[in-house]
């Protein structure tokens, strides 16, 4: 087991920079998600880790071993990594057992040893009875489990996942997530998992690297990313909530209580008197999560007046869209339905101040 290091990686395609000076340390046994919208470069990073793409600059190391640099490139077939593809990449002319056993065949592992390891791998994904089937006879979820078995049969140190759930329906995803979690617990392999689905990344990974336009926006645990996102883009990308523009404040801090009420009051006054939205220079964005907004029923309590713009039933609660006096919008939750255009008073518990996007 060794640490996987990405050191100042750059990647250009036809002169266009796709990855720009990216550094990351992935500890042995970690479950890391690379999260970002499509085109952010996350798949390119995975393909560079697998060795399909050479790096344009920088180094990739696995422990002491140099995998990729500008001058040296260890071919994929010598890296002993496993990978699970979005398209499953099962060979349609081989049975399930042959698919899973192919890496063993290449390593010239034969006979009883081979049979035993194929059986063990299929047991992990609970597909022992399907050994003689062809991939075409399996369902999507079963195919992905065969691919999973194939990636673990040689007990690789690192297993790469390239959007493995993108082709599956919603119900199967939940089951497969459970399978992946069990897989990680059992093999203790380092996992690098590419996805564009933030909920999937949050529920599976112990660390998440959020990428945008080839750059690392933030690196942290799922809890960190949710509670203390770095900038407006990330705040909009992860979890639900609203970004408000308040009178300029220090970024990266929680604003609570009296301080928050005061800031909000100033902003609202200013916004109304100027008749135009506050310009970016004099304001800074803050993130307000819906669960931090409370409706006040007691007329004596102090609060802010809002109008209901929209009310959508979500089952366990109602999603409410509110408009502040200066026209800015807020997301809130409510246990009871609210009429459109009705007036209410709210109290803000806390807000997280953000950096403006570069």
């Amino acid at each position: 087991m060794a640490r996987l290091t990405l050191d100042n990686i750059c990647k250009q395609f036809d002169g266009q920079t796709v990855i720009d000076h990216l550094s990351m340390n992935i500890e042995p046994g970690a479950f890391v998600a690379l999260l970002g919208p499509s085109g952010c470069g996350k798949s390119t990073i995975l393909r560079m880790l697998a060795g399909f793409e050479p790096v344009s600059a920088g180094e990739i190391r696995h422990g002491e071993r140099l995998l990729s640099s500008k001058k040296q490139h260890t071919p994929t077939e010598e890296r002993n990594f496993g990978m699970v593809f979005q398209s499953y990449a099962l060979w349609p002319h081989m049975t399930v057992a042959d698919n899973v056993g192919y890496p063993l065949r290449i390593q010239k592992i034969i006979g009883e040893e081979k049979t035993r390891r194929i059986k063990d791998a299929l047991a992990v994904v609970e597909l022992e009875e399907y050994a003689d089937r062809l991939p075409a006879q399996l369902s999507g979820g079963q195919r992905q489990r065969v691919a999973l078995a194939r990636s673990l049969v040689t007990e690789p140190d690192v297993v790469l996942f390239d959007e493995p759930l993108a082709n599956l329906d919603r119900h199967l995803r939940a089951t497969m997530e459970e399978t992946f979690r069990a897989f990680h617990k059992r093999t203790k392999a380092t996992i690098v998992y590419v996805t564009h689905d933030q909920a999937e990344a949050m529920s599976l990974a112990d660390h998440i690297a959020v990428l945008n336009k080839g750059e690392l926006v933030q690196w942290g645990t799922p809890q960190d990313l949710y509670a203390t996102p770095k900038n407006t883009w990330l705040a909009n990308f992860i979890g639900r909530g609203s970004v408000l523009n308040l009178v300029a404040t220090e970024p990266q801090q929680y604003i609570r209580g009296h301080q928050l009420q005061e800031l909000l009051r100033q902003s609202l006054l200013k916004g109304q008197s100027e008749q135009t939205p506050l310009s970016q220079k004099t304001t800074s964005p803050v993130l307000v999560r819906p669960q931090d907004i409370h409706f006040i029923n007691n007329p004596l309590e102090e609060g802010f007046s809002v109008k209901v713009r929209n009310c959508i039933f979500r089952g366990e609660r109602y999603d409410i869209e509110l408009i502040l006096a200066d026209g800015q919008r807020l997301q809130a939750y409510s246990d009871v339905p609210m009429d459109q255009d009705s007036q209410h008073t709210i109290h803000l518990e806390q807000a997280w101040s953000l950096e403006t996007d570069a």
Partner: protein
Amino acid sequence: MIIRAMDSQLRWLSFLLFLLIALLSLLPSLRLLTEAFVNMSFTTSSPLSEVLRSERTWRALQHSFYTSGLATLIAVVLGSGFAFVVSLTNIRRRALWVFCFMLPMMIPPQVTALSWLQLFGPASPLLNTFGLAPALGSSNPMYSPEGIALLLGIQSAPLVFLALRTQLINLPQDMIEAARMARASHLRIWIDIIVPLCRSAMVAGAALAFVSSLGNFGIPAMLGIPINYLVLPTLIYQQMAGFGDDVLSEIAGLSMIIALLVLAGMLLQQWLQQRSQYALIGHTTQSISFNLKKARAPVEIVLGGILCFILVIPLLSLIISSFVPALGMPLNGETFTLNAYIEMLSKQGSTARAFSNSVFLALAASLTLMLVCLPLGYLLMRLPMRLRSVIASLIEVPYAIPGIVLAIAFILLFARPLPFIEVSLYGTLTIIFLAYLSCFLSVCLKPIMSAMSQLDSSLEEAAQLAGAKPLQRLFHIVLPLTAPAFFAGGLLVFLISINELTVSALLWSAGNETLGVLIFNLDEGGDSVLASAISVLVVLLVASLMALLSLLAPRLPKGIIPWHD
């Protein structure tokens, strides 16, 4: 260390393969260029200026343009008519219609010409059988520029049909449904939506038909030479007879003219085809199908009539001609004879020889090309996009330029004994074999490349992660998954080369004749009954090979087999 050795093996392999491409694809064209331009000076005596000043050249060029132009018109009318009806309506037995309409393209041109000659001449066995033959002594209407154009048109109509059909079956049904919701009538839909979307495809098909007619040798040779109506390819053929010092350079000059015309046409066609590719949005799962309702039966009868005229009747007359004792006699219970077939199979030494020559050439060419194309396609797929398309178009050149031009290039290359080993290939089967390799490399490579490019790249990447080296991946993963295309490529080469006439017409020598040459020679020598009998066998062979390919079709990527969707 083993790994390094493997990779260097692969490097050696690619070096050898690219050398082979250079030899097969580039060398003939370069040889032709040097021959045409090496003596180039603008003095009156240089061969090229001689060619350009010769009245015969300009007359042949004019004839080429007239016959090919008229042929293109016929091809567009026939091809697009069939394409619209077969692709856009609920006509029954669609696959059969497509197969029958594509057949004329696969039948060798000299056989087509022969069957039409048999049909219309005063000695026509078919017309004589029904007592309808024109008076003896009257000329056969097929021996005319218009006769040539008609057959060229029929032979190249499938090209227009294909270009158009590919576009038509990709038009999504929902576009038509949207137009219907806008209350457009069938006619308006056809005029406002379907025609604009496939106009460029039609023009591209027309360009292809023109180019292929321009390079055709078999039809103008059978129909034009007897009345001394020469087009460019037949002019070259006749010039070859007067083998002299300057003749080769002059012929090289003539060949250059055709090659340039054809290449210009191909470029135009490619440009148009690219322009015609509108990004079509929508479900392509269901293509357009107009309900003909009551008009269906009449439409089918009209199509059947046309097919009868262009395919069935000529073939029928060919078959009848092969069963009569001598040309000019009607076929009935008394005259029916299998003499021609018996003679063909037993007595005529040249027939058996031509048959075995052609089978040997076709087998050798298809097997060699299959062996070459597998690693070649695999290596090409691993090249950067731009380099790959450059090499692919290089491979295309010998196939695109007319066979007669390629044959001239090979004569120029091998007229003298090979250096160092002092062996002369001229006048042997080997020179024909080499010319076939050069000509049909792209025929074999295309299906393989197409299947490989449709292979999800992750399949091979998964094997790479499993530790498989390039050659292991080729044999474990890529070959099993592209095997049908691999065999289709070989079968196509076999199908085309067993009937080949143009290249072998110039390269054959006594004892080395091919089937195509044999039919041509027998007809020229007046033995059309025997020529017909051989042609019947050839048509049977072609149809059964096409049927065999159709059996492979469900396991092939779309578009590999021309007469299949």
